[in-house]
């Protein structure tokens, strides 16, 4: 099958600084890919390379099967939406949408048709005669999406489009982007540092660190089978609990000598002999009281902090001398100092090689 966007061996340097090195990424037609990573990891740089706003140092980029590595952005069949909206402030919304088409010399009725369609999809018809200064942040970002829409392209690029909005608007517009994708079925490449956006929107997430894609997989796999310690720690809030120790056959021994049976864990490749390892368990995979009856490892722990969050409660305790958080239903009364039985659902946990930091 032909890929919609295909990046081969891409490298990009700013002077001596290597931001991207030999990066490969294939994106299927109609796929929603999220590039997720902390600030400064090279997400925007990668997106700008795809858009043609940066000249690559090495490698090739294909869009729709065509080598576009040295084409101008306008000839690549892409539309782009920016964090700061980047609207043309002295033009009305209608003109913002149509300006690129006018400059390209498109017939007037075709322009009108496209603008009307974009305005209908994004529900910005009432705003068409306003200037960007008289719009709210959410409306501005809609207009910016509209400007990409009228270009009638196959690939949409988003660079942190929701980061300048407040929390409420952000979740509204997030849903709208998802709806837009379901309606248009375009390929979308979406950059964010917000894992909720990534998990909710993506067909596949590419987690980046220092210009390298750590893991490229669907949100479920990313969340449940993180490929290395970095991904495991980055995804999930509150983050995964980590206990350092050694693994030998089916027994994990924590640093303080606590033994945890890990026979239920699905090893990719069972380690030969004893190996320094890190056991990772998500807060929701730690069970409380009777729920813990069936799991392979149980212990008694003292509650240190209780954080009620409405729908659920987050509790802090110590296992093997290491602080551990777990989630439980908010119906269960928990008090600081309570001694409770908790159990680890090892089958859903993760084990990492302590040296290579890769999943075992």
């Amino acid at each position, binding site marked *: 099958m032909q890929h919609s966007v295909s990046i081969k061996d891409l490298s990009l340097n700013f002077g001596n600084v290597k931001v991207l090195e030999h990066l490969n990424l294939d994106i299927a037609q109609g796929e929603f890919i999220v590039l997720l990573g902390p600030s400064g990891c090279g997400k925007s740089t990668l997106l*700008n390379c795809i*858009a*043609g*706003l940066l000249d690559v140092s090495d490698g090739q980029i294909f869009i729709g099967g065509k080598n576009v590595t040295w084409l*101008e*952005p*306008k*000839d690549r069949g*892409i*539309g*782009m939406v*920016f*964090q*700061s*909206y*980047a*609207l*043309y*402030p*002295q*033009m009305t919304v209608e003109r913002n949408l149509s*300006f*690129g088409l006018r*400059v*390209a010399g498109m017939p007037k009725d075709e322009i009108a048709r496209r603008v009307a369609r974009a305005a209908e999809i994004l529900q910005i018809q009432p705003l068409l005669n306003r200037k960007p200064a*008289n719009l709210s942040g959410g409306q501005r970002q809609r207009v*910016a999406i509209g*400007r990409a829409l009228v*270009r009638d392209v196959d690939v949409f690029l988003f660079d942190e489009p929701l980061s300048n909005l407040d929390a409420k608007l952000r979740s509204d517009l997030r849903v709208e982007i998802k709806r837009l994708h379901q309606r248009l079925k375009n390929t979308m490449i979406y950059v964010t540092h917000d894992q909720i956006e990534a998990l909710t929107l993506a067909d596949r997430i590419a987690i980046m660190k220092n210009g390298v894609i750590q893991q490229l997989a669907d949100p479920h796999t990313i969340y449940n089978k993180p490929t290395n310690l970095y991904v495991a720690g980055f995804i999930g809030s509150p983050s995964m609990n980590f206990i350092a120790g050694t693994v030998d056959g089916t027994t994990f021994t924590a640093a303080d000598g606590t033994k945890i049976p890990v026979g239920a864990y699905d090893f990719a490749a069972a380690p030969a002999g004893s190996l320094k390892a890190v056991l990772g368990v998500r807060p929701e995979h730690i069970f409380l009281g009777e729920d813990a009856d069936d799991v392979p490892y149980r212990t008694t722990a003292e509650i240190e902090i209780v954080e009620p969050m409405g729908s659920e409660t987050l509790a802090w305790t110590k296992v093997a001398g290491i602080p551990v958080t777990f989630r439980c239903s908010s119906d269960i009364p928990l008090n600081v100092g309570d001694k409770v039985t908790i159990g680890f659902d090892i089958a859903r946990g993760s084990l990492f090689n302590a040296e290579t930091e890769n999943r075992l």
Partner: protein
Amino acid sequence: MADTAVPLEAGAETAHRPGLLKRILFHNLPAKIAALPMMATVLVVFVGCTIWTVYYSFTNSKLLPTGKFVGFDQYERLFQTSRWNVSVTNLVAYGAMSLVFTLVIGFILAVLIDQKIRFESAFRTIMLYPFALSFIVTGLVWQWIMNPTLGLQGTLRNLGWSNFSFDWIANPRMVLFAMLIAGLWHGTGFCMVLMLAGLRGVDEEVWKAARVDGIPTWRTYVSIVIPMMRGVLITAIVILGSGIVRLYDLVVALTNGGPGISSEVPAKYVFNYMFSGGNIGQGLAAATMMLLTVLIIMVPWAYLEFGGKGKRT
């Protein structure tokens, strides 16, 4: 907090409604006291002196402002004086050319420097230097350069290029262009720095969006960037315009109005009549005409710029 503050405020207002004048006077009293010196300065220096100027322009005052009221006599005489009429024409011609060229050249230089060139700050400093010099120095320097016998023309002729000719400063038809050269040399650097600040204020993502939209660079400047620089442009026009209206020292140092009266300007006319011509009434009439011209341009503009604001937003 806010919930309780609103009804309190409303209550205070109804209670004090009868003493509206008192409220206007005493509301925020310390701020008003602090603003008093400023208000006094404005009233005495600006308004007071303006009224004084206009009043004595209707008298036949000679050496001292003591003359008696003569109606529009001074103005009639003013517009019959060819020196005044030449001054006004010169100012309009010089002003229009200087404004346009300074803005255009300043903008082009700023665009060139904005291309991430090396030694940018060095260039900026060099270009800004002329603005740090007074017009007197600028005028004198260019007077030497353009002096037919001592300057460029003389030098090149001495070097053997005997039919080289650059005598604008001594040529009544070209002397305005000589002034223009000196004026541009003085002002473009400053204009460039202002424009550069404006260009730097344009979000980089707007440029990226325009590239994705396929808008050519020149078109992006014309249709997107320049409209975004409106504030900077107005600042530049106001500063340059006020410099043009009170143009005096450059002329004195460069040509002293010559040859003949071919490079006279209104401010020089005012100064000459008031302080060396011993005809205060005539000088003040000329000054009043300058003020009137500025007002005729400024008032409609200020009305459009600030007056309509309440309706627009």
